[in-house]
């Protein structure tokens, strides 16, 4: 290898390693700082466990809403031409660039309990301010874009000829979508859902403004709680080792869910390879 190539490779290696190090070392520091005591305190702390359970429930609900609304929007953006499509596509990316504290303020202004929109949603049994609805709303707002964007990309990558072949083989538009388009886009949609979930779980700013203290109502009935991220933020001023321990547990939960989803992607998506229609 000539000296120039060796220098280039070394430089690329050092730069790459520094970024990988930046990703990993803070996590290591977190576990190191928390230590066994911090981890066990956080794990045994009823308040944190409730907050964690609530976060998982709310984020699951938010991902459900995100898939229900984001996948059709991604499909429309990928497949259809219509006036204002560029504007809609730009609007979809707004939540990615708006600071999340601002998201909380904007949502609070719109869904204020004494305002017309907030009163209306409350009358439907979906209160937003300091309520489960507010937490889900923030999670959908900050993470919904990922589902739309990845779905759009996934649908766009499905070859038009493949769909035409399915139609000529006897599949109606709905059957072609269910047996060809959706399975082909499944992996992209799953990635979007995972990104949305991760974004929702890591959110703090929006919750601090709109839904910092939540009284979950049935079926999520329970004591006053908040999201895990807000609990950690609040506890940082009280017991840093406990906050670090809770953060480490949150990291472990996130990694576990990531691994489960990837495992599902490898095995559970068998239907996407034809199991749906033998």
């Amino acid at each position, binding site marked *: 290898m000539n000296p120039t190539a060796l220098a280039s490779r070394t430089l690329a290696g050092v730069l790459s390693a520094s970024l990988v190090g930046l990703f990993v070392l803070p996590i290591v520091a977190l576990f190191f700082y928390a230590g066994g005591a911090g981890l066990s305190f956080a794990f045994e702390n009823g308040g944190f466990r409730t907050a964690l359970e609530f976060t998982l429930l709310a984020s699951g609900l938010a991902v459900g809403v995100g898939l229900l609304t984001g996948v059709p929007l991604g499909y429309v953006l990928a497949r259809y031409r219509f006036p204002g499509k560029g504007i809609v596509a730009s609007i979809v990316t707004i939540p990615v660039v708006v600071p999340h504290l601002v998201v909380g303020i904007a949502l609070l202004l719109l869904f204020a309990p004494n305002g017309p929109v907030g009163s209306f949603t409350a009358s439907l049994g979906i209160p937003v301010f300091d309520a489960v609805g507010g937490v889900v709303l923030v999670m959908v707002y900050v993470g919904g874009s990922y589902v739309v964007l990845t779905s759009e990309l996934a649908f766009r990558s499905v070859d038009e*000829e493949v769909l*035409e*072949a*399915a139609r000529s*083989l006897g599949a109606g538009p709905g059957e072609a979508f269910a047996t060809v388009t959706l399975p082909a886009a499944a992996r992209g949609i799953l990635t979007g859902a995972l990104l949305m979930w991760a974004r929702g779980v890591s959110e703090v700013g929006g919750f601090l403004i709109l839904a910092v203290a939540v009284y979950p109502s049935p079926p999520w009935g329970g004591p006053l709680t908040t999201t895990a991220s807000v609990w950690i933020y609040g506890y940082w001023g009280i017991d840093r080792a406990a906050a670090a321990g809770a953060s480490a547990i949150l990291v472990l939960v996130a990694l576990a869910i990531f691994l489960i989803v990837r495992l599902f992607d490898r095995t559970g998506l068998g239907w996407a390879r034809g199991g749906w*229609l033998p």
Partner: protein
Amino acid sequence: MSDLELFDVETERGTFHLGPVRFEVPAGTATVLLGPSGAGKTTLLRAIAGFLPLTGGSVQLDGARVDEFPPERRRFGFVPPNLGLFPQRRVRQNVRYPLSLRGAPDAERKTEDWIGRFGLEALAERFPHELSSGQRQRVAMARALAAEPRALLWDEPLAALDVESRDTLVRLLRDLLETERLPLLLVTHDPTTAFALASRLVILHSGLVRADRTPEALARGPLDRFVARFLGFENLFAPAELATAREATLAPRLAASSGPGGLAVPPEAVLWRSGGDGPHRARVAALRWTAAGWVVALRHGSLTFHTLAPGAVPGCRVGDPVTIDVDPAVVKPLVGIPAEEER
């Protein structure tokens, strides 16, 4: 068994207008659609299959209109240029797809039957990306036939295949035409495939049918520039080219034989010998080896003639002077392209 008939079919794709196009593909025969890029071949196939709306005319199978149905009810075995195989499905699942869709009770048996007929047994558990081009073509054909279509519409099914794979598939297709008795409308750029399969050749140009003939009738003429090129003529001279030829003593004689579309000079019409001592002189401009032998390019003034040199060695080198002549009995005058077809 059914006949496919197109009655003044018209369609549009952007600013391109196709038609009116009228021809028939009888059951058990293949009609090959030919034409330069942009002539409308793929557009016509997609319109017949139902993926482009007709703006005029009708498509009929056995005398009944099918163009009012959506693609899934037309029962055409449509194979698009890139085959449209389902990438997530294995070969067996691809072939079984149309049978599963309609809940065929003997789907398993029929799937295995088509897999066997196309020699795909050893590949049945592979995904399309694990197959060669020829193998993918066979899967697409097996899948199209498993749908029990009433007619076949295949767009460049044999493109990008090596000669052996192509010949194998051509044999398969001929057998299928005999056994299934289906009409096959095929788009190809390959003359060998066209002549091996076609009962009729339909030539499209600028969205209109320029010719609809048997291969024999097409080869015997009258020829125009496109057909001559398709048939493999290399020595095509436009009238203006002959009229303004420089230092080409043969040009006046060729111009006299030329038709409105110019003149085609088959390689066997070019007579030549070494030594530039004859009345019409040329030089060897290039030599290239082909399966048919040495092709010699002879430069006669501003005109270039390609001809064949028999034997394993060409008997000349680039730059050698030669004497050249053209056998007037073998040259083919070309007809012009009607003005309304040049839109």
